[in-house]
């Protein structure tokens, strides 16, 4: 099965107590305000992104992201194209999930 190399970059905007960002099982840490990484994934696979946001109920979360192969082909979650806007609804917590096909 062929492997695709890609880069992912995202910003998570809002007023939060904390944000935990995962690509698959790997936690990605913010660098200069952005969550970025380079990845490898089998062709036909899915990139699962989870963004755990802690903050006030009612707080808006804006997730902007770009995901593109080395050759420039862009990928996105067909159900949640960038920019994804959600709100923390209860428990002062929300997990925002992306599922990006390759």
């Amino acid at each position: 099965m062929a492997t695709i190399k890609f880069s992912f970059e995202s910003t998570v905007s809002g007023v939060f107590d904390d944000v935990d960002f995962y690509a698959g099982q790997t936690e990605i840490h913010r660098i200069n305000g952005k969550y970025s990484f380079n990845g490898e994934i089998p062709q036909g696979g899915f990139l699962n992104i989870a963004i755990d946001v802690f903050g006030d109920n009612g707080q808006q979360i804006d997730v902007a992201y770009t995901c593109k192969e080395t050759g420039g082909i862009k990928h996105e979650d067909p159900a949640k194209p960038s920019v994804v806007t959600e709100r923390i609804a209860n428990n002062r917590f929300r997990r925002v999930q992306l599922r990006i096909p390759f």
Partner: protein
Amino acid sequence: MKQVAFPLVFALLYMLSISGHGQDFFEDIRANGIPILQPDSCKKALITPRLSTQDNSIKVNFFKWRGGGFLCQTAKTQPAGDQPDSTRPDGAQLAQVVLGPDTPNPPVSTKPEYANGWGLNLKAKASDGIGTIFRGADFANGVTLGAYVAFARLDKVLNGRPAGVFTGNIVSLNYTVNSYRFLQANKPVNEQLTDFNTYGGFTASFAQFRKMPFGTDDRDNLYLGYSMSFSQSDNYGDLEKVEVRNTVQYLIGTDSLRIQSTVDDKGYVYAFTDDKSSFLRPFNFQFRVHATYIPKALDYRIAFVTYPEVNHQFDGKTKLNANFALHFLKDGEPSASIVGLFLSFNDIGNAAEKTQPFLKRSLVVGITTAWNLFIVKK
């Protein structure tokens, strides 16, 4: 000058304003809150100018989280095994993530996280209006300079479910210098008016608060907290205030009269003292509890606040104050207050032994508003 200064200050602060990521905890009618920065980046610091109409004050706070805590995620290192192998255009080292065909995400972390930060605050107040703070050489009638440290903990589980419960502890030390002048009614007329004299004193405080979900399905926001402070205060606020103006009457011709008042750049307000009411500077212990409720039913646009407090003066007087506030909040950002309306009943038991009716001596209404500014430290 006064009429010009306030709009200028307002316009200046408005132009400098940026969407807020700070939050004032334990704010009261005198804008005596303690702002701490909400996490965005530990490379940023928060500057919060704040206006209060109740004591005609302007306060500026500076706050910054220290690196290493959960509020400064940039200080974290990538986990072992995810060694950076490339560089972003801005120079940042990126992690390399190798994924399976459908690698699932892990469950929500349940590990509590910790952080700490520090801040400075400067408050200036005037007795004749906010605009007079900036007038000429007379900077202000009262100046407070202080420093504080904050310790935060975030618990990520509540009743076995993922949740955010944020607990903060704040320790602060302030030094206040006030400048007052008095009309001493129990002295001969030519000795009754004093010039400004300065009085200084320390205030040490500790505050703890918790932000938690509340209500049906945990959809509302509730902040609970308490604070204690020990200070050398004074009873200037309890004394009656009088305006004293030097006026001269001129008789022009036979039937017209001109009354001329001398402009006093230091204002007209004097505190009134006599044999029954004198200026005192007792030590003071204050205990305050604080609750803020932000319901989903109002789309998180209004915060209901109450903060009853007990002030025990070591001259034997104990005052009970009941305070209430409504904050109008920014849409989609319940932690950001656009404007706060305050209503206070001070000294409900009349420990100051004022002779005025209850509402006149006790009820105070005020407004505070703030702008949060950021400095990006490269």
